[in-house]
C-alpha cells in the first residue's frame, strides 16, 4: 500500500481545505461545521453511512450547493463556485452519485456538455467525436462516440460520466460511488486510471461503501457521521472494524448466520422461462423459508428475470408456479394477488413515490384490502403504516414525505409497502444497493426473519458477493441470460461465483 504522498508542491498548502462548512436542507442539517483537508496527489476516501452528508459535501465543493456558512479553499485560495462549470474552470471535476446524463444526446456530447470544442463560433463536432473516443479508449472502454446514451447499459453510462469528469490538468477529481454499477473487471480499470491520475498530481476524493476498494486505493480516509466530520486518518491506521465503528457509532459485522430452520415445500417454481434475446430457459425452485441469492455481472439479465416473474415482461415463454399453482405472469397486480412481490433496484424511480407521505407509500399495494366498494379507510391505512413503520424501524412521522428521508429509510419504505401485503414470495433486486453497512445488516436481519419466521420464499438479486454469501441459503449465478450455476451456499466462494458469472473457467459441474 502506498504511503500518503505529499508530492510536488511541498509548500504544505493543502490542495483542498474545507473550513467549518454547514449546509441545511429544510429540516435536515446535512452538514454541520465540517472541516477537512485533501493533500495534493492523494487518494482520499470519504466514507459514512447513508445520509451522512458525503454527497452534499461534494455538492458544496463543486458549486451544486451553496454552503450556509464556512469556506472552501483550493490551493490556499478561497473557492467561489456557483456551478459545476465554475468548479471545472477552477480545476475540480466530479462524477456524481446520481446519473447526470442526457439520454437523447450522443456519448460525445454528453462528455463535452458545456465545454464543447469550438471552431470559431460553432461546435466542432468531428473533433468532439474524436476527442470523446480518445478519452474513452484511455479508460480502456471502446464506445462509439456517436451512439445515443439512452441505449447504453448502466456500466457504459457510468464510464461516459467518468470520461466526462477525467481531464488532463485536473487539480481535484471527486468520484461519488463510481463502482456501484461496475463489474470487478471494469472497476479494476477505474482503479488503474485513478492511480495514473494520482501519479500525475491530481488529488482524488473517492466515496464508496465498498471496504475492499477503499483499502486498495486510499491514502487517507475521512469518516463522516450525521453531517459531521468524525475522523481523518491514514488508511493503514483504520481497519474495517474500526472504520465501521466510526461510521455507525457501534461495530457491525457482516457475517453468515447458519440456517437452523428446516426448509418447507417449494413455494416458487420457475420452469423454462424465456424471453428471446434477454434470457433463456431459466429454471429454479425456491422453498418456503429459503433465501436464494442471484449473482451475476451487471447486465447479465438478473433484473429482467426478476421483473418477468413479477409480470413486467409480456410475451414470456415458460411456466411459473406459486405453491404448486400455475400463474401466468401477465401483470404486477396479478402476481401481487398471488403473493409475489418485487422490490425494484431503482429505489427512487420505481421503489417509492418520493412526493407522497410515508403512510401512502406503505399502503399503496394494499389499497384493495383497506376498504370496501373501492373506498379506502384512512384509519386502516394509518394502522397498517404504523405497524410496518415500527416493524422496520423507519424514521420520521407517517405524514412526512418520503423525499425527506435518507436513502436507507427510503429503501425500508420500499420494502415495507410489500411486507404490508404479507407476500409469500419476495423478489428483492439489489436490496442494499447504496445502503450503509449499519442499515445493511438491519435489512439482512429483516430478510432472515421473513424467511425463517414468516416462511416466505426470498429471491435476492445482488451484486455484492459478500452479501450473497452471508445471506443466501443457495446461490444462482446468471450469465448472459442463462443460469450458469445453482449451488448451495456452502459450496460457493466469491471466486467460484465470479468464475461462473464470467464463464472464464468452465469448471464446476453445475454450469449450464
Amino acid at each position, binding site marked *: 500500500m502506498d504511503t500518503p504522498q505529499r508530492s510536488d508542491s511541498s509548500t504544505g498548502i493543502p490542495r483542498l481545505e474545507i473550513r467549518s462548512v454547514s449546509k441545511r436542507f429544510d429540516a435536515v442539517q446535512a452538514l454541520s461545521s465540517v472541516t477537512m483537508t485533501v493533500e495534493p496527489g492523494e487518494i482520499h476516501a470519504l466514507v459514512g453511512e447513508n445520509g451522512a452528508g458525503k454527497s452534499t459535501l461534494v455538492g458544496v465543493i463543486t458549486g451544486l450547493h451553496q454552503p450556509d456558512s464556512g469556506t472552501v479553499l483550493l490551493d490556499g485560495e478561497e473557492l467561489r463556485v456557483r456551478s459545476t462549470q465554475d468548479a471545472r474552470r477552477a480545476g475540480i471535476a466530479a462524477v456524481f452519485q446520481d446519473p447526470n446524463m442526457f439520454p437523447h444526446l450522443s456519448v460525445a456530447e454528453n462528455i463535452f456538455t458545456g465545454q464543447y470544442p469550438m471552431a470559431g463560433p460553432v461546435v466542432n463536432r468531428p473533433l468532439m467525436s474524436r476527442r470523446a473516443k480518445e478519452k474513452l479508449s484511455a479508460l480502456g472502454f471502446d464506445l462509439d462516440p456517436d451512439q445515443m446514451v439512452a441505449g447504453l447499459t448502466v456500466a457504459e453510462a457510468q464510464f461516459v460520466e467518468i470520461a466526462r469528469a477525467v481531464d488532463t490538468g485536473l487539480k481535484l477529481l471527486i468520484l461519488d460511488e463510481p463502482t456501484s454499477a461496475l463489474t470487478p473487471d471494469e472497476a479494476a480499470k477505474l482503479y488503474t486510471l485513478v492511480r495514473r491520475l494520482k501519479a500525475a498530481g491530481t488529488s482524488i476524493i473517492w466515496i464508496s461503501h465498498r471496504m475492499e476498494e477503499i483499502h486498495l486505493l486510499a491514502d487517507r480516509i475521512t469518516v463522516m457521521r450525521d453531517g459531521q466530520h468524525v475522523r481523518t486518518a491514514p488508511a493503514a491506521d483504520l481497519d474495517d472494524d474500526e472504520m465501521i465503528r466510526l461510521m455507525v457509532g457501534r461495530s457491525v459485522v457482516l457475517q453468515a448466520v447458519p440456517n437452523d430452520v428446516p426448509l418447507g415445500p417449494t413455494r416458487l417454481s420457475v420452469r423454462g422461462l424465456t424471453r428471446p434475446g434477454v434470457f433463456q430457459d431459466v429454471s429454479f425452485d425456491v422453498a418456503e423459508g429459503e433465501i436464494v441469492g442471484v449473482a451475476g455481472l451487471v447486465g447479465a439479465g438478473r433484473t429482467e428475470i426478476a421483473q418477468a416473474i413479477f409480470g413486467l415482461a409480456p410475451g414470456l415463454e415458460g411456466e411459473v408456479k406459486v405453491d404448486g399453482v400455475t400463474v401466468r405472469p401477465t*401483470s404486477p397486480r396479478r*402476481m401481487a394477488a398471488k403473493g409475489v412481490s418485487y422490490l*425494484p433496484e431503482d429505489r427512487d424511480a*420505481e421503489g417509492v413515490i*418520493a412526493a*407522497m407521505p410515508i403512510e401512502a407509500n406503505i399502503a*399503496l399495494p394494499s389499497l384493495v384490502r383497506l376498504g370496501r366498494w373501492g373506498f379506502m379507510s384512512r384509519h386502516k391505512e394509518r394502522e397498517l403504516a404504523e405497524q410496518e413503520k415500527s416493524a422496520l424501524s423507519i424514521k420520521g412521522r407517517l405524514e412526512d414525505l418520503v423525499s425527506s428521508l435518507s436513502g436507507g429509510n427510503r429503501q425500508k419504505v420500499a420494502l415495507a409497502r410489500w411486507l404490508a401485503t404479507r407476500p409469500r414470495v419476495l423478489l428483492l433486486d439489489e436490496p442494499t444497493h447504496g445502503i450503509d453497512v449499519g442499515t445493511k445488516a438491519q435489512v439482512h436481519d429483516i430478510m432472515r426473519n421473513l424467511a425463517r419466521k414468516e416462511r416466505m420464499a426470498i429471491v435476492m438479486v445482488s451484486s455484492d458477493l459478500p452479501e450473497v454469501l452471508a445471506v443466501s441459503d443457495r446461490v444462482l449465478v446468471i450469465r448472459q441470460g442463462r443460469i450458469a450455476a445453482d449451488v448451495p451456499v456452502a459450496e460457493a466462494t466469491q471466486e467460484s461465483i465470479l468464475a461462473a458469472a464470467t464463464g472464464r473457467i468452465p469448471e464446476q459441474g453445475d454450469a449450464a
Partner: protein
Amino acid sequence: MRSILKSYSWELLLVVLIGAAFVWSSMLSPYFLDPINLANSAAFFVIFAFMALGQFPIVVQGEIDLSLPSILAVSSVTYATLAVRGVPLPAAVGAILAVTVAMGVLNGVLVARFGLPSLAVTLGTAGAFRGIAYIIAGAAGVTGLPKQYTILGRMWVWILPVWVVLTVVAAVAFAVLMGATRFGRECYAIGNNRAATRMAAVRVVRAQIGAYGLAGAMAGVAGIVWVSQYQSARGDNADGAILFVLTAVVLGGVSIKGGSGRALGVGLSLTLLGTLQTGMQLANVPGTSQTLVIGALLVIAVAVPTLLQLITSWRRKLVGSTHADQLHHDGPPSLRSAGESPLKGR
C-alpha cells in the same frame, strides 16, 4: 390547525378572491346581487363544470385531455338526433353514455396502453371527434326536439336550476372519488410517479383508461346538458371551450404536472371565474377586457406562490445568507411526469 391552513392555502386564496370578485362585481353592476340572475348565471357554467370535473382526475394523473369539447359535440348532436327520431329518453341517455365513454376509453387506451403523449393524442382525437360530430349533425344542426328531452333544462329545485344542483352533487362526488377511494389515491400516485405506482401492483393502465372513460362520460353528460339548455345541437358545439376548462382546472390548484389538486379547488375556481365573468358581463365590460382579465388572472394566480418565494429569497439575499439554490429545486418542464426517467429507455 396551522397545518390545515397551510395545506388548504390555495383554496383559502380562492375563497378570498371569490369574496373580492363578489364585492367588485356588485360594485360594477347593480344587477349582480339579484339571486335569480345569479342562479341563471350559474346554470351557464354547468357545461364547463362537468368538463372541468372530468378533466380533473386526468390532470392529477399527469395527463391531459383536449378532446372533451369535441366529445361534448358528438354527445349533443347524437342525443339531439336520437331525440328527434323519437328514441326513448333512457335509451338515448344510455346510448350517449356508451358512445362518450367509448371515446374517452379510446383516448385512454392510446395514452395508457400504448404510452403515447396525451397532449398529442388528444389534440388529434379532438379534431377527429369534432369531424364525427359534424358528420352526424349535417350542415344545419339539429333542432325541434320533443319537450321531454330538454325538460331538465327548465326545471328548478327551489331557487336553483336543477343542473346547478346536479353540478354541486357531481363536484361532491368527485371530491369523494378523489379523496376517499382507491381510484383517487391511485390517480395521485400515478401523477407523482407512474413507474413506481405500476411496481406497487396498481393497475395503472386501467386507472388511466378509467379516468379517460369517466371524463368522456362527463363530457357526454355535458352534451346532454347543452341540448337541454339550448334545445338544439350543432357540430361546432363548445368549440374553443377547452381553454376555459383548463383554466378552471389549473386555477383550482391542480398541478398540470400531476400528482396534486383537489375537487374543492376546482369547484372554487369555477365559482371565481363565473363570478368574474358574470359581473363583467352585467356591467357590459367589452369582451376584450374580459379576455384580458381572465388571462391575467390565470397567469398571476399561478405565479403568486413563486413570486412570494422569490421576494423572500431576494430579501434574504440582501440580508446576507444564500438559499438561492433551493429555488431551483425542480424547474419548469411541463407535462413531464416525475417517474419517467428517460434513461430507462426500455
